[in-house]
């Protein structure tokens, strides 16, 4: 566990699984080569998009719900210290115990300590982004504690020794046949005749986990919402594995980011309409559990909550970026993202992939952490994420903001100018005067020469090579638009310019 002497300088960034360890373009290049992955993702994201649009269009007041959701989250951020204290008071009054964790290490240490206190060496787990972010499973394993993922997709990923690639459906990159193969390979005592029918696969998971649920003494969960005015926690799920974990064990340890609060019980009516429709495209998810501290005679009697900062306060300090903390992890933005659909979640490195990950990860870690400065560029700024987001996070705006933060952070470093800097300086010189531009345009025929007889340039030099990695560019025209305009639009009384070459006109 970390100890601090006095107040460190602010902001303090997050640690754990929040970094891209290679730049996004590099990772994306590798992932794009996996055609199976692209087919799986294309199929899954299109299925969910259609479902989401269908159930969203059923609600006449969807936009009003989004407006309310957005404003509630904005008020949560503005009132966060006060709401945290209120929540703590209520949760504690009902028999729950609150722990505070500055970063991933501290949170991991607290959870391991709490499990050890029970004398157990095993825990069942409900899918949780926060515990993924802090790398809890790996840490517990080092400590000799086995953490069993119980969500079907998490189970698939865990059995396959893989990493999640989506926040809602961590195994979205696997198709049914791949899942069957993993089960046959890794699941003890599985029926050898197992087919790849999803219902059969779900039944295999049920059989596999049943004993674990019925005997588990400790469960670890995340939380979707925490209500400040009552001290209530909520977990939204589908399979019933969440209920198993939240109800049957004696000890329940929940890890939750500080930003998950909602001020009042009434606010739940907004978010329980927004979340299921945006995430799985259902009117309501099969199961939602709510608990307030300890209820005598029903459910775990030893109830803990670890409140996690891990870079959230740093994100909050960024006035332009703080609304990224409004995120309710529905995954709608990644399901509609043309970049995510092709690269998949692994290319983003961090626990949080897709459009939200491209802003949240660098906000939490600081733009200079490892390769996270490449993430804000992983977008075409098409805006589909903003339209889909149930709490109206303006992701494109924050992406642009973070790009400028990235550029500024490099400028300060006084390093050798990059090709991009040189290019930009050259462009600013050329574009600031019509004469200079005209002079440069005289060079166009050179480009035609480079393109060769098929009129395509397949490889540009330097950093421009990135552009031609996956596409050709057509040869430049014989004359520039400015030349053409001059010839066409002569002063009155003068003769029109000579017949021009149609082929290259726009």
């Amino acid at each position, binding site marked *: 566990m970390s100890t601090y002497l006095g107040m460190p300088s*602010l902001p303090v960034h997050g640690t754990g699984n929040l970094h891209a360890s290679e730049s996004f373009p590099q990772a994306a290049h590798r992932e794009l080569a996996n055609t199976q992955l692209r087919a799986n993702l294309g199929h899954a994201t299109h299925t969910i998009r259609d479902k989401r649009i269908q159930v969203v269009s059923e609600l006449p007041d969807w936009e009003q719900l989004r407006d*309310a959701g957005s404003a509630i989250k904005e008020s949560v951020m503005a009132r966060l210290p006060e709401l945290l204290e209120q929540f703590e008071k209520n949760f504690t009054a009902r028999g729950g115990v609150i722990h505070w964790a500055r970063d991933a290490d501290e949170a991991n240490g607290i959870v391991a300590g709490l499990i050890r206190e029970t004398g157990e060496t095993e825990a069942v787990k409900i899918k949780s982004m926060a515990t993924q972010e802090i790398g809890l499973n790996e840490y517990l394993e080092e400590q000799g504690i086995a953490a069993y993922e119980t969500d*079907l997709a998490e189970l698939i990923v865990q059995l396959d020794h893989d990493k999640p690639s989506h926040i809602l459906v961590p195994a979205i990159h696997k198709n049914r046949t791949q899942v069957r193969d993993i089960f046959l390979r890794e699941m003890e005592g599985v029926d050898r005749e197992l087919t790849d029918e999803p219902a059969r696969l779900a039944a295999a998971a049920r059989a596999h986990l049943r004993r674990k649920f*019925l005997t588990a003494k400790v469960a670890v969960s995340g939380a979707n919402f925490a209500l400040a005015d009552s001290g209530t926690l909520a977990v939204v799920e589908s399979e019933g594995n969440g209920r198993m974990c939240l*109800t049957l064990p004696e000890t329940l340890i929940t890890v939750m980011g500080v930003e998950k609060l909602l001020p009042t019980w009434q606010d739940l009516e907004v978010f329980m309409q927004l979340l299921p429709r945006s995430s799985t495209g259902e009117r309501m998810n*099969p199961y939602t*559990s709510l608990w307030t501290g300890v209820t005598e005679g029903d459910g775990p009697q030893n109830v803990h909550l670890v409140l996690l900062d891990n870079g959230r306060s740093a994100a909050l300090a960024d006035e332009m970026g703080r609304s990224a903390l409004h995120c309710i992890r529905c995954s709608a933005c990644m399901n509609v993202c043309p970049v995510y659909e092709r690269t998949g979640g692994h290319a983003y490195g961090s626990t949080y992939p897709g459009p939200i990950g491209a802003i949240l990860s660098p906000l939490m870690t600081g733009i200079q952490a490892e390769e996270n400065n490449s993430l804000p560029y992983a977008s075409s700024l098409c805006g589909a994420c903003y339209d889909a987001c149930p709490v109206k996070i303006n992701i494109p705006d924050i992406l642009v903001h973070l790009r400028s933060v990235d550029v500024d952070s490099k400028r300060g470093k006084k390093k050798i100018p990059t090709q991009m800097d040189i290019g930009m300086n050259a462009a600013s010189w050329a574009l600031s005067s019509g004469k200079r531009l005209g002079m440069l345009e005289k060079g166009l025929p050179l480009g035609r020469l480079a393109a060769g007889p098929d009129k395509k340039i397949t490889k540009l030099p330097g950093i421009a090579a990135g552009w031609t990695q996956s596409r050709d560019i057509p040869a430049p025209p014989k004359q520039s638009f400015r030349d053409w305009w001059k010839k066409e639009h002569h002063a009155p009384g003068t003769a029109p310019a000579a017949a021009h070459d149609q082929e290259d006109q726009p």
Partner: protein
Amino acid sequence: MSAREEILERIRTALKDAPEVPVIPRGYRASSQLDEAELIELLVDRLIDYKARVCIVDTEDVPMKIAELLAEAGSYVVPAGLDADWLTGLELQQDSRRRLDSMTAPLSVAELDGIDAVVTGSAVAVAETGTIILDGSPNQGRRAITLVPDHHICVVEVADIAGILPEALRRIDGTRPLTMVSGPSATSDIELERVEGVHGPRTLDVIIAR
């Protein structure tokens, strides 16, 4: 400095620009204004869509319906506070298949695992989403009894049907141990296709009593 103090301090520092606390625009629907027949129709439609089995019966026929649905069950559990009238169906009197569960005399998880079905009441239902809310009242019992047995028979009284979620949540005490149930357990984890029946009860029978 404790972690608590330090985190709160970090957050206060992050908010040093004192962002405005917005007024929450609650222009969304607060109620649905459906009449009883419409509420029932909508709830049934939504329950069936999510693969629950539904029947509508007159209140006096509830015992008969429960007995019928339990015909196949080798054993079943009921919460101690279940409406006694509901268990007066002929076959259910002095039924040796029946187990009682309460806060003070709870069955163990292993015992529940050996039981085929559970019969409970419900606190509120939401017609628009096909959701039933259980709040742990004596006629619904501990959360474990509606989770471990594979077949849940749940009685919803017409007076407890709300049109939309905001109406339903207004009728609920949020500090009770709550479970919101919408159809039998399901997963969308394989190719995002919904498949019913994972860890929770795989069969959900809803009896709407009017």
